[in-house]
């Protein structure tokens, strides 16, 4: 599903595009926007709140890792209600992410080893149905997808 350059084809419902500064001060806005867009896509409030958390984590990672905390860069976001899927893409022009380099947290080890990193990625993966990273045209694209039919049985 994720080989679309950025504009999806066909009958995709209209999309919300947002471009914001890479400052953590905007994370509250990211959370609110995501919650509302998820509710507009038909998710219940508790699920919409979890989706907002996942997108907050993704945006936080862009600011802290891809841009290494630089506050003068830009984060582009695209919210799409694709019929059966709710999809959020975050695009940055910062440091490349190698998905294989991103450590997968084993939560049991986590508990015993008491690490502090890796929680955000783990939350994103638990909450979403898919989390993918790709590099295209010198931009990093992080795509988060949640299937609507799975809403009631959401693992998160």
């Amino acid at each position: 599903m994720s080989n679309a350059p950025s504009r999806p084809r066909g009958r995709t419902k209209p999309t919300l595009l947002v471009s914001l500064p890479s400052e953590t001060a905007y994370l509250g806005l990211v959370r609110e926007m995501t919650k509302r867009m998820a509710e507009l896509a038909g998710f219940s409030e508790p699920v919409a709140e979890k989706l907002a958390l996942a997108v907050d984590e993704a945006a936080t990672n862009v600011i802290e890792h891809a841009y290494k905390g630089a506050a003068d860069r830009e984060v582009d976001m695209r919210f799409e209600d694709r019929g059966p899927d709710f999809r959020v893409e975050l695009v940055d022009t910062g440091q490349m992410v190698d998905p294989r380099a991103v450590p997968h947290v084993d939560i049991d080890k986590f508990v015993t080893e008491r690490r502090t990193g890796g929680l955000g990625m783990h939350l994103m993966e638990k909450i979403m149905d898919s989390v993918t990273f790709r590099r295209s045209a010198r931009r990093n694209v992080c795509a988060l997808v949640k299937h609507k039919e799975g809403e009631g049985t959401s693992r998160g």
Partner: protein
Amino acid sequence: MSELTVESRDAGEVVLLYPKGFINAHTVRLFEGALQNAISLQRFKIVVNCSSLVYIASAGLGAMMGAIEEIRSNGGDLRLASLNETVQNIFDILGFNHLYRTYASEAEAIASFGPAPGAASGA
């Protein structure tokens, strides 16, 4: 705009923290500061009353992970009271319930640390 405030109160040996609002990567310093402040005052029995905590992202959980080692190695603990459903849910997703003790009320969380020395003699 204050997305987060953190008040601190004493209840005998126990320090109570009251985060109010949203803990994310933007506001987490404030929460971290409150934890570090208790530690630097050698107050290691800490209850975080979450009744007004609306939201916590991984940054906030990371702040607790970063402090827990020192707290426990000094004979203390960090315990949580009155989590709302959203926050409880995030804890569950991460398996934090294995790591932190949570209580339905602040009183129970305070009581879990056992009777305060003063309380025992003052009865």
